[in-house]
Protein backbone atom coordinates (compact mmCIF):
# COMPACT_ATOMS: atom_id res chain seq x y z
CA UNK A 1 0.00 0.00 0.00
CA UNK A 2 1.70 3.13 -1.21
CA UNK A 3 1.47 6.51 0.42
CA UNK A 4 1.74 8.18 -2.97
CA UNK A 5 -1.22 8.11 -5.31
CA UNK A 6 -2.29 9.76 -8.54
CA UNK A 7 -5.51 11.29 -7.31
CA UNK A 8 -8.28 12.64 -9.46
CA UNK A 9 -8.99 16.36 -9.36
CA UNK A 10 -12.70 16.72 -8.69
CA UNK A 11 -12.75 20.48 -8.50
CA UNK A 12 -10.36 23.42 -8.46
CA UNK A 13 -12.08 26.72 -7.96
CA UNK A 14 -11.11 30.24 -6.97
CA UNK A 15 -12.67 31.16 -3.62
CA UNK A 16 -11.23 34.62 -3.20
CA UNK A 17 -8.63 36.43 -5.30
CA UNK A 18 -5.67 34.05 -5.51
CA UNK A 19 -7.22 31.54 -3.08
CA UNK A 20 -8.23 28.16 -4.49
CA UNK A 21 -10.24 25.25 -3.21
CA UNK A 22 -9.00 21.95 -4.61
CA UNK A 23 -10.87 18.69 -4.13
CA UNK A 24 -9.15 15.38 -4.83
CA UNK A 25 -10.36 11.80 -4.83
CA UNK A 26 -8.26 8.76 -4.04
CA UNK A 27 -7.97 5.59 -2.00
CA UNK A 28 -5.49 7.08 0.43
CA UNK A 29 -8.09 9.48 1.74
CA UNK A 30 -9.03 6.68 4.14
CA UNK A 31 -5.59 6.97 5.73
CA UNK A 32 -6.24 10.57 6.70
CA UNK A 33 -6.76 10.45 10.43
CA UNK A 34 -6.27 13.86 11.97
CA UNK A 35 -7.12 17.43 11.13
CA UNK A 36 -3.82 19.29 10.76
CA UNK A 37 -1.99 16.59 8.85
CA UNK A 38 -0.72 17.59 5.43
CA UNK A 39 -0.13 16.19 1.97
CA UNK A 40 2.83 16.76 -0.29
CA UNK A 41 1.71 17.55 -3.83
CA UNK A 42 3.85 16.79 -6.85
CA UNK A 43 3.90 19.34 -9.68
CA UNK A 44 4.70 18.52 -13.27
CA UNK A 45 6.58 20.87 -15.50
CA UNK A 46 8.70 24.02 -15.44
CA UNK A 47 11.58 22.34 -13.69
CA UNK A 48 9.71 21.75 -10.42
CA UNK A 49 11.46 19.25 -8.20
CA UNK A 50 10.13 19.60 -4.68
CA UNK A 51 6.63 18.63 -3.71
CA UNK A 52 4.47 21.37 -2.18
CA UNK A 53 3.02 20.80 1.29
CA UNK A 54 -0.62 21.72 1.97
CA UNK A 55 -2.77 21.11 4.99
CA UNK A 56 -5.74 18.83 4.72
CA UNK A 57 -8.76 21.12 4.98
CA UNK A 58 -11.65 18.69 4.84
CA UNK A 59 -11.95 14.92 4.70
CA UNK A 60 -14.95 13.34 3.06
CA UNK A 61 -14.35 9.66 3.76
CA UNK A 62 -17.49 8.17 2.17
CA UNK A 63 -16.62 9.83 -1.14
CA UNK A 64 -12.90 9.17 -0.70
CA UNK A 65 -12.42 12.88 -1.24
CA UNK A 66 -10.45 15.50 0.58
CA UNK A 67 -9.90 19.18 0.12
CA UNK A 68 -7.04 21.61 0.34
CA UNK A 69 -7.25 25.38 0.15
CA UNK A 70 -4.20 27.13 -1.19
CA UNK A 71 -3.03 30.62 -1.94
CA UNK A 72 -1.07 31.47 -5.08
CA UNK A 73 2.31 32.28 -3.63
CA UNK A 74 4.92 31.53 -6.26
CA UNK A 75 5.43 29.48 -9.39
CA UNK A 76 4.29 26.19 -7.93
CA UNK A 77 0.95 27.37 -6.61
CA UNK A 78 0.48 29.38 -9.80
CA UNK A 79 0.85 26.12 -11.71
CA UNK A 80 -1.54 24.39 -9.32
CA UNK A 81 -4.15 27.10 -9.91
CA UNK A 82 -4.21 26.07 -13.57
CA UNK A 83 -5.00 22.40 -12.88
CA UNK A 84 -8.50 21.43 -13.92
CA UNK A 85 -11.06 18.85 -12.86
CA UNK A 86 -10.34 15.54 -14.57
CA UNK A 87 -6.57 15.89 -14.35
CA UNK A 88 -4.54 13.88 -11.87
CA UNK A 89 -2.11 14.99 -9.19
CA UNK A 90 0.32 12.77 -7.36
CA UNK A 91 -0.35 13.13 -3.66
CA UNK A 92 2.02 11.93 -0.94
CA UNK A 93 0.30 11.65 2.37
CA UNK A 94 -1.23 12.02 4.85
CA UNK A 95 1.95 13.17 6.54
CA UNK A 96 2.82 14.55 9.94
CA UNK A 97 1.06 14.87 13.24
CA UNK A 98 -2.25 16.73 13.37
CA UNK A 99 -4.29 18.50 16.05
CA UNK A 100 -5.13 16.16 18.93
CA UNK A 101 -8.88 16.30 19.37
CA UNK A 102 -8.75 14.16 22.46
CA UNK A 103 -6.95 16.93 24.32
CA UNK A 104 -10.37 18.50 24.66
CA UNK A 105 -12.53 17.07 27.43
CA UNK A 106 -16.30 16.92 27.48
CA UNK A 107 -17.91 20.27 28.05
CA UNK A 108 -14.79 22.25 27.31
CA UNK A 109 -14.60 25.10 24.82
CA UNK A 110 -12.08 25.22 21.99
CA UNK A 111 -10.80 28.41 20.44
CA UNK A 112 -9.58 28.04 16.86
CA UNK A 113 -7.35 30.87 15.67
CA UNK A 114 -6.56 31.10 11.97
CA UNK A 115 -4.48 33.66 10.16
CA UNK A 116 -4.94 34.00 6.41
CA UNK A 117 -3.96 30.86 4.59
CA UNK A 118 -3.43 29.18 7.98
CA UNK A 119 -7.19 28.83 8.19
CA UNK A 120 -7.77 25.63 6.14
CA UNK A 121 -6.56 22.93 8.58
CA UNK A 122 -8.82 24.38 11.28
CA UNK A 123 -11.88 23.62 9.21
CA UNK A 124 -11.74 19.84 9.52
CA UNK A 125 -10.87 20.36 13.17
CA UNK A 126 -13.89 22.61 13.77
CA UNK A 127 -16.15 19.98 12.31
CA UNK A 128 -14.71 17.21 14.40
CA UNK A 129 -14.78 19.14 17.68
CA UNK A 130 -18.32 20.22 16.96
CA UNK A 131 -19.31 16.62 16.21
CA UNK A 132 -17.87 15.58 19.58
CA UNK A 133 -20.30 18.00 21.17
CA UNK A 134 -17.83 20.65 22.26
CA UNK A 135 -18.36 24.33 21.92
CA UNK A 136 -16.09 25.77 19.23
CA UNK A 137 -15.21 29.41 18.67
CA UNK A 138 -13.32 30.37 15.52
CA UNK A 139 -11.45 33.61 15.13
CA UNK A 140 -10.06 34.26 11.69
CA UNK A 141 -7.81 37.10 10.62
CA UNK A 142 -7.25 38.34 7.08
CA UNK A 143 -5.55 41.29 5.40
CA UNK A 144 -8.72 42.75 3.98
CA UNK A 145 -12.25 42.02 2.85
CA UNK A 146 -11.06 40.46 -0.44
CA UNK A 147 -9.03 37.87 1.39
CA UNK A 148 -11.85 36.54 3.57
CA UNK A 149 -13.01 33.00 2.86
CA UNK A 150 -14.87 30.15 4.59
CA UNK A 151 -16.72 32.31 7.09
CA UNK A 152 -20.00 30.62 6.25
CA UNK A 153 -18.44 27.16 6.29
CA UNK A 154 -16.91 27.66 9.71
CA UNK A 155 -20.19 28.97 11.08
CA UNK A 156 -21.78 25.58 10.46
CA UNK A 157 -19.66 24.18 13.24
CA UNK A 158 -18.63 27.13 15.35
CA UNK A 159 -19.19 30.67 16.46
CA UNK A 160 -17.15 32.74 13.99
CA UNK A 161 -15.46 36.11 14.41
CA UNK A 162 -13.54 37.78 11.62
CA UNK A 163 -10.86 40.42 11.83
CA UNK A 164 -9.21 42.26 8.96
CA UNK A 165 -6.10 44.37 9.28
CA UNK A 166 -7.64 47.29 7.40
CA UNK A 167 -11.08 46.91 8.95
CA UNK A 168 -12.72 46.46 5.55
CA UNK A 169 -14.59 43.48 6.96
CA UNK A 170 -15.46 42.56 10.52
CA UNK A 171 -13.24 43.76 13.29
CA UNK A 172 -10.35 46.10 12.48
CA UNK A 173 -7.18 44.66 13.91
CA UNK A 174 -5.51 41.35 14.42
CA UNK A 175 -6.96 38.15 15.86
CA UNK A 176 -5.43 38.61 19.28
CA UNK A 177 -6.87 42.07 19.65
CA UNK A 178 -10.23 40.72 18.58
CA UNK A 179 -10.10 37.85 21.10
CA UNK A 180 -9.27 40.29 23.86
CA UNK A 181 -11.91 42.77 22.78
CA UNK A 182 -14.56 40.08 22.74
CA UNK A 183 -13.32 38.76 26.09
CA UNK A 184 -13.52 35.23 24.71
CA UNK A 185 -13.14 32.48 27.21
CA UNK A 186 -11.88 29.01 26.27
CA UNK A 187 -10.14 25.94 27.64
CA UNK A 188 -7.85 25.09 24.81
CA UNK A 189 -6.64 26.81 21.67
CA UNK A 190 -5.67 25.50 18.27
CA UNK A 191 -3.88 27.91 15.95
CA UNK A 192 -2.41 28.06 12.47
CA UNK A 193 -1.13 31.12 10.66
CA UNK A 194 1.91 33.32 10.15
CA UNK A 195 4.89 32.90 12.48
CA UNK A 196 4.32 36.37 13.97
CA UNK A 197 0.80 35.42 14.95
CA UNK A 198 1.91 32.13 16.48
CA UNK A 199 4.62 33.90 18.43
CA UNK A 200 2.14 36.43 19.78
CA UNK A 201 -0.18 33.57 20.78
CA UNK A 202 2.65 31.85 22.62
CA UNK A 203 3.38 35.05 24.47
CA UNK A 204 -0.24 35.80 25.32
CA UNK A 205 -1.40 32.32 26.31
CA UNK A 206 1.72 30.21 26.72
CA UNK A 207 1.68 30.46 30.48
CA UNK A 208 -1.98 29.87 31.28
CA UNK A 209 -3.58 27.94 28.50
CA UNK A 210 -3.31 24.57 26.89
CA UNK A 211 -3.01 24.72 23.13
CA UNK A 212 -1.58 23.52 19.84
CA UNK A 213 -0.01 25.42 17.01
CA UNK A 214 0.80 24.37 13.45
CA UNK A 215 4.10 25.48 11.90
CA UNK A 216 5.41 25.85 8.35
CA UNK A 217 8.93 25.32 7.16
CA UNK A 218 10.55 24.65 3.79
CA UNK A 219 10.59 20.94 3.21
CA UNK A 220 12.30 18.44 0.97
CA UNK A 221 11.40 14.87 2.00
CA UNK A 222 8.29 15.55 4.08
CA UNK A 223 8.86 12.47 6.25
CA UNK A 224 11.74 13.31 8.54
CA UNK A 225 14.66 11.94 6.56
CA UNK A 226 16.44 15.05 5.30
CA UNK A 227 16.43 17.37 8.31
CA UNK A 228 15.50 20.26 6.04
CA UNK A 229 12.51 21.46 8.06
CA UNK A 230 13.79 21.52 11.61
CA UNK A 231 12.62 23.94 14.26
CA UNK A 232 13.85 24.78 17.69
CA UNK A 233 12.90 22.72 20.66
CA UNK A 234 11.92 24.93 23.54
CA UNK A 235 14.52 25.00 26.29
CA UNK A 236 16.70 22.31 24.78
CA UNK A 237 19.35 22.16 22.07
CA UNK A 238 18.02 23.69 18.88
CA UNK A 239 16.77 22.05 15.69
CA UNK A 240 15.69 18.85 17.35
CA UNK A 241 12.17 18.85 15.97
CA UNK A 242 11.24 18.20 12.38
CA UNK A 243 8.13 20.11 11.30
CA UNK A 244 7.19 17.34 8.84
CA UNK A 245 7.54 14.48 11.30
CA UNK A 246 7.14 15.63 14.91
CA UNK A 247 4.84 18.40 13.56
CA UNK A 248 3.47 20.34 11.82
CA UNK A 249 1.29 20.56 14.94
CA UNK A 250 3.17 21.10 18.19
CA UNK A 251 2.12 21.78 21.74
CA UNK A 252 1.83 25.49 22.42
CA UNK A 253 5.12 25.58 24.32
CA UNK A 254 6.83 22.67 22.64
CA UNK A 255 8.80 24.78 20.19
CA UNK A 256 10.39 28.19 20.30
CA UNK A 257 9.48 30.33 17.34
Amino acid sequence: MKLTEDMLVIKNQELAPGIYELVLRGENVRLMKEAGQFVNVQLEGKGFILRRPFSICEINSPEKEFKIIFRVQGEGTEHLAGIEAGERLNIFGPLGKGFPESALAEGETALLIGGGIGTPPLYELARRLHDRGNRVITVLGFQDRDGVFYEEEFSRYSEVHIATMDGSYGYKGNVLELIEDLGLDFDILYACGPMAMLKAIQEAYGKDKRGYISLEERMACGIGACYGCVCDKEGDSPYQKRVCKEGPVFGLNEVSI
Partner: protein
Amino acid sequence: MIDLRIDLPGLKLKNPVIPASGCFGFGEEFAELYDLNQLGAITIKAATLEPRIGNPTPRIAETYGGILNAIGLQNPGVEVIIKEKLPWLEQFDLPVIANVAGDTVDEYVEVSRRLAGSEVIKALELNISCPNVQKGGMAFGTDPDTAAELTAEVKKAAGKPVYVKLSPNVTDIVKIARAVEEAGADGLSMINTLLGMRLDLRSGKTVLANGTGGLSGPAIKPVAIRMIYQVYREVNLPIIGMGGIQDARDVLEFLYAGASAVGIGTANFINPYVCPEIIRDLPGVLAEHGFNSIQEAIGYAHR
Protein backbone atom coordinates in the same frame (compact mmCIF):
# COMPACT_ATOMS: atom_id res chain seq x y z
CA MET B 1 17.71 -13.74 -15.74
CA ILE B 2 19.40 -10.39 -15.46
CA ASP B 3 22.05 -10.36 -12.77
CA LEU B 4 21.85 -7.19 -10.71
CA ARG B 5 24.52 -8.20 -8.21
CA ILE B 6 27.75 -6.35 -7.91
CA ASP B 7 30.66 -6.79 -5.52
CA LEU B 8 32.60 -3.77 -4.38
CA PRO B 9 35.25 -3.52 -1.68
CA GLY B 10 33.43 -4.40 1.54
CA LEU B 11 30.05 -4.36 -0.17
CA LYS B 12 28.25 -7.40 -1.53
CA LEU B 13 25.36 -5.69 -3.25
CA LYS B 14 22.14 -7.42 -4.34
CA ASN B 15 21.76 -4.59 -6.77
CA PRO B 16 23.60 -1.33 -7.43
CA VAL B 17 20.98 1.02 -5.97
CA ILE B 18 22.04 2.85 -2.80
CA PRO B 19 20.23 5.78 -1.18
CA ALA B 20 22.74 8.63 -0.93
CA SER B 21 23.97 10.10 2.31
CA GLY B 22 21.85 12.80 3.88
CA CYS B 23 18.79 12.00 1.79
CA PHE B 24 17.70 8.92 3.68
CA GLY B 25 18.44 9.68 7.33
CA PHE B 26 19.32 6.41 9.02
CA GLY B 27 16.66 4.55 7.09
CA GLU B 28 13.93 4.67 9.71
CA GLU B 29 11.51 6.92 7.86
CA PHE B 30 11.75 5.04 4.58
CA ALA B 31 11.38 1.74 6.41
CA GLU B 32 7.82 2.84 7.13
CA LEU B 33 7.23 3.05 3.38
CA TYR B 34 8.89 -0.12 2.08
CA ASP B 35 11.13 -3.01 2.98
CA LEU B 36 14.71 -1.74 3.07
CA ASN B 37 16.01 -5.22 2.33
CA GLN B 38 15.24 -4.55 -1.31
CA LEU B 39 18.06 -2.00 -1.49
CA GLY B 40 21.60 -2.68 -2.57
CA ALA B 41 22.90 -0.91 0.52
CA ILE B 42 22.23 2.29 2.38
CA THR B 43 24.44 5.25 3.09
CA ILE B 44 23.60 6.88 6.38
CA LYS B 45 23.73 10.56 7.24
CA ALA B 46 27.11 12.14 7.86
CA ALA B 47 28.52 11.47 11.32
CA THR B 48 30.79 13.85 13.21
CA LEU B 49 32.52 13.38 16.55
CA GLU B 50 30.23 15.67 18.52
CA PRO B 51 26.54 16.30 17.89
CA ARG B 52 25.93 19.09 15.39
CA ILE B 53 22.90 21.27 15.12
CA GLY B 54 23.52 22.25 11.52
CA ASN B 55 22.65 25.54 9.85
CA PRO B 56 19.73 27.85 10.57
CA THR B 57 16.58 27.47 8.48
CA PRO B 58 15.54 27.86 5.68
CA ARG B 59 17.85 25.04 4.67
CA ILE B 60 16.08 24.05 1.48
CA ALA B 61 15.40 25.97 -1.73
CA GLU B 62 14.26 24.93 -5.14
CA THR B 63 15.95 25.79 -8.41
CA TYR B 64 15.06 24.82 -11.97
CA GLY B 65 15.54 21.05 -12.07
CA GLY B 66 17.36 20.97 -8.77
CA ILE B 67 17.34 21.80 -5.11
CA LEU B 68 19.75 23.64 -2.88
CA ASN B 69 20.33 22.34 0.61
CA ALA B 70 22.33 23.70 3.49
CA ILE B 71 21.62 21.21 6.23
CA GLY B 72 25.12 21.67 7.57
CA LEU B 73 25.80 18.12 8.70
CA GLN B 74 23.25 18.09 11.49
CA ASN B 75 23.67 14.77 13.31
CA PRO B 76 23.54 13.43 16.85
CA GLY B 77 27.27 12.64 16.94
CA VAL B 78 29.04 9.36 16.34
CA GLU B 79 28.36 7.88 19.79
CA VAL B 80 24.61 8.32 19.60
CA ILE B 81 24.67 6.96 16.06
CA ILE B 82 26.50 3.86 17.20
CA LYS B 83 24.32 3.34 20.23
CA GLU B 84 20.91 4.30 18.88
CA LYS B 85 20.88 4.16 15.10
CA LEU B 86 23.11 1.28 14.08
CA PRO B 87 21.51 -1.39 16.29
CA TRP B 88 18.20 -0.70 14.57
CA LEU B 89 19.86 -1.30 11.20
CA GLU B 90 21.05 -4.76 12.30
CA GLN B 91 17.62 -6.23 11.60
CA PHE B 92 18.17 -5.79 7.86
CA ASP B 93 20.21 -7.86 5.46
CA LEU B 94 21.76 -4.70 4.14
CA PRO B 95 25.31 -3.40 3.93
CA VAL B 96 25.51 0.00 5.56
CA ILE B 97 27.93 2.68 4.38
CA ALA B 98 28.82 5.28 6.98
CA ASN B 99 29.37 8.81 5.75
CA VAL B 100 32.07 10.54 7.81
CA ALA B 101 32.72 14.25 8.24
CA GLY B 102 34.85 16.43 10.45
CA ASP B 103 36.71 19.67 10.97
CA THR B 104 40.16 18.13 11.23
CA VAL B 105 42.03 15.07 10.05
CA ASP B 106 41.97 13.79 13.60
CA GLU B 107 38.21 14.08 13.78
CA TYR B 108 37.77 12.13 10.54
CA VAL B 109 40.15 9.47 11.84
CA GLU B 110 38.42 9.14 15.16
CA VAL B 111 34.92 9.02 13.76
CA SER B 112 36.00 6.49 11.16
CA ARG B 113 37.69 4.32 13.75
CA ARG B 114 34.62 4.22 15.91
CA LEU B 115 32.17 3.58 13.09
CA ALA B 116 34.38 0.88 11.60
CA GLY B 117 34.13 -0.87 14.93
CA SER B 118 30.45 -1.54 14.27
CA GLU B 119 29.43 -4.83 12.68
CA VAL B 120 26.76 -3.36 10.42
CA ILE B 121 29.09 -0.82 8.87
CA LYS B 122 30.66 -2.44 5.83
CA ALA B 123 32.43 0.58 4.40
CA LEU B 124 33.18 4.19 5.16
CA GLU B 125 32.49 7.11 2.89
CA LEU B 126 34.68 10.12 3.58
CA ASN B 127 32.68 13.23 2.95
CA ILE B 128 35.40 15.63 1.87
CA SER B 129 32.92 17.54 -0.22
CA CYS B 130 30.23 19.03 1.99
CA PRO B 131 29.78 22.60 0.79
CA ASN B 132 27.69 23.60 3.77
CA VAL B 133 30.14 23.86 6.63
CA GLN B 134 32.71 26.52 7.43
CA LYS B 135 35.59 24.28 8.35
CA GLY B 136 36.51 20.87 6.98
CA GLY B 137 34.06 19.48 4.46
CA MET B 138 34.77 20.72 1.00
CA ALA B 139 38.10 22.23 2.03
CA PHE B 140 39.48 18.70 2.23
CA GLY B 141 38.09 17.83 -1.17
CA THR B 142 39.47 20.65 -3.25
CA ASP B 143 43.17 20.11 -2.64
CA PRO B 144 44.77 16.84 -3.78
CA ASP B 145 47.40 16.75 -1.03
CA THR B 146 44.96 17.36 1.79
CA ALA B 147 42.58 14.79 0.36
CA ALA B 148 45.38 12.26 0.08
CA GLU B 149 46.64 12.84 3.59
CA LEU B 150 43.17 12.46 5.03
CA THR B 151 42.57 9.27 3.08
CA ALA B 152 45.87 7.75 4.17
CA GLU B 153 45.28 8.55 7.84
CA VAL B 154 41.78 7.13 7.84
CA LYS B 155 42.94 4.00 5.99
CA LYS B 156 45.58 3.41 8.65
CA ALA B 157 43.09 3.66 11.48
CA ALA B 158 39.87 2.25 10.10
CA GLY B 159 40.49 -1.27 8.90
CA LYS B 160 37.40 -1.17 6.67
CA PRO B 161 37.14 -0.18 3.03
CA VAL B 162 37.22 3.55 2.49
CA TYR B 163 35.30 5.33 -0.27
CA VAL B 164 36.16 8.96 -0.77
CA LYS B 165 33.29 11.22 -1.76
CA LEU B 166 34.52 13.80 -4.22
CA SER B 167 33.45 17.37 -4.66
CA PRO B 168 32.51 18.59 -8.15
CA ASN B 169 33.56 22.11 -7.22
CA VAL B 170 37.08 21.68 -8.51
CA THR B 171 39.07 22.55 -11.59
CA ASP B 172 40.41 19.04 -12.08
CA ILE B 173 38.55 16.18 -10.47
CA VAL B 174 40.87 13.59 -11.96
CA LYS B 175 43.75 15.03 -9.97
CA ILE B 176 41.90 14.63 -6.68
CA ALA B 177 40.74 11.14 -7.63
CA ARG B 178 44.30 10.09 -8.47
CA ALA B 179 45.62 11.53 -5.24
CA VAL B 180 43.19 9.58 -3.07
CA GLU B 181 43.78 6.44 -5.15
CA GLU B 182 47.49 6.68 -4.43
CA ALA B 183 46.72 7.32 -0.78
CA GLY B 184 44.96 3.97 -0.61
CA ALA B 185 41.27 4.66 -1.11
CA ASP B 186 39.20 1.59 -1.95
CA GLY B 187 36.60 3.40 -3.98
CA LEU B 188 35.13 6.74 -4.96
CA SER B 189 31.70 8.27 -4.48
CA MET B 190 30.90 11.04 -6.86
CA ILE B 191 29.54 13.58 -7.06
CA ASN B 192 28.55 15.61 -4.08
CA THR B 193 26.59 18.81 -4.66
CA LEU B 194 27.61 21.84 -6.71
CA LEU B 195 27.90 25.02 -4.72
CA GLY B 196 24.98 27.31 -5.60
CA MET B 197 22.81 30.14 -4.38
CA ARG B 198 19.36 31.64 -4.79
CA LEU B 199 18.28 35.14 -3.90
CA ASP B 200 14.83 36.05 -2.72
CA LEU B 201 13.51 38.92 -4.80
CA ARG B 202 11.31 40.28 -2.03
CA SER B 203 13.84 40.38 0.78
CA GLY B 204 16.92 40.78 -1.37
CA LYS B 205 18.60 38.17 0.81
CA THR B 206 19.71 34.65 0.05
CA VAL B 207 16.85 32.16 0.24
CA LEU B 208 18.97 29.88 2.39
CA ALA B 209 19.87 31.26 5.79
CA ASN B 210 23.35 29.89 5.21
CA GLY B 211 23.77 31.89 1.99
CA THR B 212 25.11 29.21 -0.30
CA GLY B 213 23.90 25.63 -0.54
CA GLY B 214 24.60 22.42 -2.38
CA LEU B 215 22.86 21.93 -5.72
CA SER B 216 21.55 18.42 -6.41
CA GLY B 217 18.96 16.84 -8.67
CA PRO B 218 18.59 16.33 -12.43
CA ALA B 219 20.10 19.74 -13.19
CA ILE B 220 23.55 18.45 -12.23
CA LYS B 221 23.40 15.08 -14.00
CA PRO B 222 25.46 16.10 -17.03
CA VAL B 223 28.23 17.36 -14.74
CA ALA B 224 28.18 14.10 -12.78
CA ILE B 225 28.29 11.96 -15.94
CA ARG B 226 31.18 13.99 -17.30
CA MET B 227 33.22 13.70 -14.11
CA ILE B 228 32.62 9.97 -13.71
CA TYR B 229 33.52 9.45 -17.35
CA GLN B 230 36.76 11.38 -16.93
CA VAL B 231 37.74 9.67 -13.68
CA TYR B 232 36.91 6.17 -14.93
CA ARG B 233 39.49 6.58 -17.69
CA GLU B 234 42.28 7.61 -15.38
CA VAL B 235 41.71 5.92 -12.06
CA ASN B 236 41.38 2.25 -11.16
CA LEU B 237 38.88 2.51 -8.35
CA PRO B 238 35.25 1.43 -8.37
CA ILE B 239 32.90 4.39 -8.47
CA ILE B 240 29.58 4.84 -6.73
CA GLY B 241 28.01 7.35 -9.10
CA MET B 242 25.36 9.89 -8.20
CA GLY B 243 23.96 13.25 -9.15
CA GLY B 244 20.46 13.68 -10.49
CA ILE B 245 19.46 10.06 -11.01
CA GLN B 246 15.70 9.81 -11.37
CA ASP B 247 15.02 6.45 -12.98
CA ALA B 248 16.50 3.19 -14.22
CA ARG B 249 17.53 4.75 -17.53
CA ASP B 250 19.57 7.33 -15.67
CA VAL B 251 21.20 4.47 -13.75
CA LEU B 252 22.22 2.88 -17.05
CA GLU B 253 23.79 6.17 -18.17
CA PHE B 254 25.85 6.24 -14.97
CA LEU B 255 26.93 2.63 -15.45
CA TYR B 256 27.96 3.42 -19.03
CA ALA B 257 30.00 6.37 -17.77
CA GLY B 258 31.87 4.10 -15.40
CA ALA B 259 29.93 3.81 -12.15
CA SER B 260 29.73 0.34 -10.58
CA ALA B 261 26.84 1.30 -8.32
CA VAL B 262 24.72 4.39 -7.89
CA GLY B 263 23.56 6.73 -5.17
CA ILE B 264 20.04 8.11 -5.20
CA GLY B 265 19.57 11.37 -3.35
CA THR B 266 17.13 14.09 -4.32
CA ALA B 267 14.88 11.70 -6.25
CA ASN B 268 13.77 10.22 -2.92
CA PHE B 269 12.10 13.56 -2.19
CA ILE B 270 10.23 13.61 -5.48
CA ASN B 271 9.10 10.00 -5.31
CA PRO B 272 9.69 8.31 -1.96
CA TYR B 273 9.42 4.91 -3.66
CA VAL B 274 12.00 5.72 -6.30
CA CYS B 275 14.66 3.27 -5.07
CA PRO B 276 12.50 0.14 -5.15
CA GLU B 277 10.99 1.31 -8.43
CA ILE B 278 14.41 1.70 -10.01
CA ILE B 279 15.36 -1.76 -8.74
CA ARG B 280 12.17 -3.13 -10.27
CA ASP B 281 12.78 -1.40 -13.63
CA LEU B 282 16.48 -2.01 -13.94
CA PRO B 283 16.37 -5.59 -15.30
CA GLY B 284 14.03 -4.49 -18.08
CA VAL B 285 16.16 -1.52 -19.02
CA LEU B 286 19.31 -3.65 -19.04
CA ALA B 287 17.63 -6.31 -21.16
CA GLU B 288 16.25 -3.72 -23.57
CA HIS B 289 19.81 -2.60 -24.22
CA GLY B 290 21.18 -6.10 -24.57
CA PHE B 291 22.86 -6.60 -21.21
CA ASN B 292 22.59 -9.65 -18.99
CA SER B 293 24.19 -8.15 -15.95
CA ILE B 294 25.16 -4.90 -14.31
CA GLN B 295 28.76 -5.87 -14.86
CA GLU B 296 28.39 -5.78 -18.63
CA ALA B 297 27.11 -2.22 -18.62
CA ILE B 298 29.82 -0.74 -16.42
CA GLY B 299 32.08 1.51 -18.47
CA TYR B 300 30.26 0.61 -21.67
CA ALA B 301 30.73 4.11 -23.07
CA HIS B 302 34.47 3.58 -23.01
CA ARG B 303 34.46 0.49 -25.22
